[in-house]
């Protein structure tokens, strides 16, 4: 039985003293003041008593919390009043994440989180242990998985891998490192919705500086010399437009810079290693994160490219496991494997991870494009119709035909939606692609498919179209990350549905999951080889030699 690091106990004692002490203080203030139940001096008793109780509770919690990693299970005993004893079979652990905030780094501590497929929250949190102990725990879980090949995988499927491997400490190989240049590029091309929100809430606090900056910029552009909200009605139309335009531009700039800053703090020093059968990443400037992703637990692999990234030929890669509960803290449901790199490298790693070539996608039939164009164009058409009926029936509306100007845009949007959607059935993999602003290519190994669902809405049936979804246990699909092939020909959809089922069974029987290790090793060997290193995008030769068609 191990305890958490004593310094973490000191930390929680301090937090609890402050928390319970202030509760005692405010309770005392209420009881002596407005309620007048206790004599005035009670505050000086209640606050220290609260602090003492808090400290005692923190100490009790520290002594009650023990964990042990032995006999193939992680057992965690916790709770002062509600006692809990939890056993987690090591083979069932999906991810082991290590987090280190500034305070923890100061004292050499780390928070370790263990994720399994079940449950609605992180299954075990060790807050906090010595950083070496954290790393040792992470390695021990991986080690166990390597040694115990008979261990069942998640969802009750036994592992198919019968290759025996040496129990020695596995070699660690660098799979990917985010260079400073790529980090800066990533910061500039990625957009975080949180950034504009923070700017919006932040401006009132720095009102004076914001106004001064705005005035200076507006003046430099030939507008009024002082800008204030009360002065706004006195401006001419041109001046008002200029001011509003400048304000919007400054806002966008601030949001962009802030978003870049967020990205830099999050992905600073990102690198991905291949250790034994795990992928292990580390990242973060202030709050440091490190996580392990067992290859055998990978559910789906997603290649993401937003509009800007596509222009410069970059892409990002994420791997999804069944580990994370939806919306559990700051953790995304998917683990970023590569935040940004050129498309070829990303595809090569995706191919190595899934042991398949990322294919040319099968385009959707032309009538799907018509469907999208009609669907998007309905909005301006309906708006025009409404305005026209108001114009003729109620009162004149100037420019009632204005929404029609959007029709070219909606036609283009329809075309782009169609162009970026597609799917492919490969030997061991189902691939789907969709999204215009952020295009996601999802790779689902057949043996990960849980259910196959095809849907036909009334509008799809008119054009004899159907959508096919390959549902997996990946938690990312809760956030709309389904692997769905949209709007394919009805007959084709039936074939795809049938094929998914067939391949699931075939690949389960064949024991598909061992191969990805070879794919990665091949990729690394290739990168290490002095002459072939340039050809990172083509792992086919090694692949075809290691597998049966």
């Amino acid at each position, binding site marked *: 039985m191990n305890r958490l690091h004593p310094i973490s106990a000191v930390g929680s004692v301090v937090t609890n003293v402050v928390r319970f002490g202030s509760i005692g203080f405010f309770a005392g203030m209420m009881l002596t003041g407005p309620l007048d139940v206790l004599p005035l001096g009670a505050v000086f008793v209640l606050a220290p008593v609260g602090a003492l109780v808090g400290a005692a509770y923190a100490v009790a919690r520290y002594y009650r919390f023990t964990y042990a990693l032995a006999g193939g299970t992680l057992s965690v005993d916790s709770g002062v009043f509600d006692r809990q004893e939890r056993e987690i079979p090591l083979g069932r652990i999906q991810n082991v994440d290590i987090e280190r905030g500034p305070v923890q780094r100061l004292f050499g501590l780390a928070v370790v989180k263990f994720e399994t497929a079940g449950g609605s929250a992180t299954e075990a949190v060790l807050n906090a242990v010595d950083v070496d102990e954290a790393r040792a725990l992470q390695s021990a879980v991986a080690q166990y998985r390597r040694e115990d090949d008979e261990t069942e995988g998640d969802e009750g499927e036994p592992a198919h891998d019968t290759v025996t491997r040496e129990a020695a400490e596995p070699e660690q190989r660098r799979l990917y490192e985010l260079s400073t240049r790529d980090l800066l590029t990533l910061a500039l091309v990625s957009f975080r919705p949180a950034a504009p929100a923070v700017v919006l809430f932040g401006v009132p606090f720095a009102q004076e500086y914001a106004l001064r900056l705005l005035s200076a910029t507006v003046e430099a552009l030939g507008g009024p010399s002082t800008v204030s909200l009360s002065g706004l009605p006195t401006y001419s139309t041109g001046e008002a437009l200029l001011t509003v335009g400048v304000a919007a531009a400054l806002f966008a700039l601030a949001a962009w810079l802030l978003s870049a800053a967020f990205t830099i703090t999050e992905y600073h020093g990102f690198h991905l290693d291949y250790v034994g059968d795990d992928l292990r990443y580390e990242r973060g400037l202030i709050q440091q994160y490190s996580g392990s992703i067992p290859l055998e637990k990978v559910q789906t692999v997603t290649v993401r490219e937003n509009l800007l990234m596509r222009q410069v030929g970059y892409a990002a890669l994420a791997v999804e496991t*069944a580990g994370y509960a939806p919306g559990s803290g700051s953790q995304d449901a998917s683990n970023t494997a590569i935040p940004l790199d050129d498309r070829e490298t990303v595809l090569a790693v995706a191919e190595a991870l899934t042991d398949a070539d990322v294919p040319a996608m099968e385009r959707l039939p032309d009538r799907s494009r018509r469907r999208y164009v009609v669907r998007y164009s309905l909005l301006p058409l309906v708006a025009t119709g409404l305005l026209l009926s108001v114009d003729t029936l109620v009162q004149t509306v100037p420019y009632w035909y204005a929404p029609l100007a959007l029709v070219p845009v909606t036609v283009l949007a329809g075309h782009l939606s169609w162009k970026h959607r597609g799917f492919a059935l490969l030997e061991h993999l189902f691939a789907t692609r969709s999204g215009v602003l952020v295009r996601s290519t999802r790779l689902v190994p057949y043996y990960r498919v849980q259910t196959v669902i095809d849907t036909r809405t009334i509008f799809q049936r008119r054009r004899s179209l159907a959508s096919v979804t390959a549902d997996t246990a990946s938690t990312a699909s809760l956030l709309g990350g389904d692997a769905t092939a949209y709007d394919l020909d009805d*007959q084709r959809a039936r074939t795809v549905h049938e094929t998914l089922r067939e391949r699931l069974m075939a690949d*389960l029987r064949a024991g598909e999951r061992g191969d990805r290790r070879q794919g990665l090793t091949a990729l690394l060997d290739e990168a290490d080889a002095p002459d072939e290193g340039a050809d990172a995008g083509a792992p086919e030769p090694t692949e075809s030699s290691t597998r049966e068609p």
Partner: protein
Amino acid sequence: MIDRVVKKLLCADLTCVVGRAGSSVTPTLFPARTAPHRMERLNSRVQLLWIGRAVVVAAVLAGVAVAIDRFAIPVDPPLIAAVVVVAAVLGTVHAVLRFRRWRFEIQDDALFLVRGVVTQVDTSVPYVRLQHTDTQRGPVERLVGLSSVVVYTAGTRGADIRIPGLRPERATELREQLRELAAESEATDAV
């Protein structure tokens, strides 16, 4: 080049699937193994359940309309009646169509379901993926003497799938059948 490879692969899939499914099955019926009209249907009493539900919804709508009339803006009584009747009729038609379309089949490696009126949904649940199976009988279901079977998978979208409107004996039988099939497929899985 890759396009051609993909295309070749797809053709291979098609022939392999057609060949395996047997000569009696035309590609049109994918992934059904038998003609849809031969697949198992729900008990017709389930229509009563669904029609009853539609009527309840219509009644609630009527209640809301009356409340609006009473506390906010006056609404024509004929309008209220029309809304309620239309809601009830639509609900009834939907219930009947839903029953007529609902089919399921125990196939060799998966449970296959066909359902949906406005949006038609075909689902395959491979037996290997069954986590557990329930029979459920709600109070209203008991009233019409029906039962449901719910199958659970570890998936995120189709995590639980309900087959409603079964006679209690059939529901129990189906649950047992699915459990056995799940256990059997686990054995092949281990190979």
